[in-house]
């Protein structure tokens, strides 16, 4: 039997141009919309509506740690003062060490880290970054493995003061 060699078979060429066009358009779209997403997180703050009335707190209530953040005219932090006594300058690590000592090693619902409270008293013009720094250093610390260890759970703001004119 004679086998016919079909040598004259035409090579089918795929049209690549439209596909490349579309692919490049897609690529440009993704490049333009690409945003490096920095992880964000929240600090819960304890702000009940029924603000505690000023005056003598009940006997069984542990008074909160008062952290006073003082700002200069341009909003930069100039002083961190705890319980109107100890000043840490602008060193937030000092504040954190104070909180670590305060909470101790106890854990559980009745421990200081769960039941204790930090009250932030801030100057009106203070830059918000410093407040977050204070919340960061009061609420947690990092261990060797970069895991967050919780310190004070409850953090609140003192009632806002009107801007000094």
């Amino acid at each position, binding site marked *: 039997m004679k086998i016919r060699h079909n040598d004259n078979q035409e090579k089918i060429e795929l049209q690549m141009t439209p596909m*490349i066009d579309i692919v490049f358009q897609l690529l440009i779209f*993704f490049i333009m919309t690409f945003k490096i*997403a*920095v992880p*964000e*997180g929240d*600090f819960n703050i304890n702000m009940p509506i029924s603000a505690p009335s000023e005056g003598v707190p009940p006997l069984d209530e542990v008074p909160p740690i008062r952290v006073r953040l003082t700002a200069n005219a341009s909003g930069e932090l100039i002083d961190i003062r705890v319980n109107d006594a100890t000043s840490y300058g602008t060193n937030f690590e000092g504040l954190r060490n104070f909180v670590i000592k305060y909470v101790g090693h106890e854990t559980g619902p009745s421990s200081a880290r769960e039941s204790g409270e930090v009250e932030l008293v801030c100057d*009106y013009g203070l830059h918000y970054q410093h407040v977050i720094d204070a919340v*960061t250093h009061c609420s947690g610390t990092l261990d060797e493995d970069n895991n967050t260890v919780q310190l004070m759970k409850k953090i609140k703001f003192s*009632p806002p003061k009107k801007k000094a004119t």
Partner: protein
Amino acid sequence: MKIKKKQTDQTEADLTPMIDMVFQLIAFFMLVITFNDNEQHEKIVLPKSETVRPTEKSDEVPLVIHLTKEGRAIFGGREVEVDDMANRLRNHIDVKGEETRRLPVIIRGHRHAETGKVQDLIKICQDQGLEKFALRAKAKVRNQGATGD
């Protein structure tokens, strides 16, 4: 004279490696793209924190209020004075229903915003019956440097 026609070979570029690369790039961008940036705003540069951890996704959609460096609030895409937020929130609650009051309020303040404005904002929200508040911050890698711009 007989002119010899030069037989020109049509050179074909090999597109395969380029297409491979382009597809790889597209696959990469498709995987890393995030469209859910409704909560973000280009005017807001969040403060950084080393202990903040990414929030877990929950079913309830929080109320997100941005606070610009100039001390103006952005809520629902509209920029208003902080003092006008009471009306905006009241309208929002009227439209969305009373259960809105149970939703958490996420405050995305600019890192150089005045703290007093943040407190004013919280007070206004409290006056509208909102109780749960969270301050949003950007995660910072330890030893990255303090607060460089």
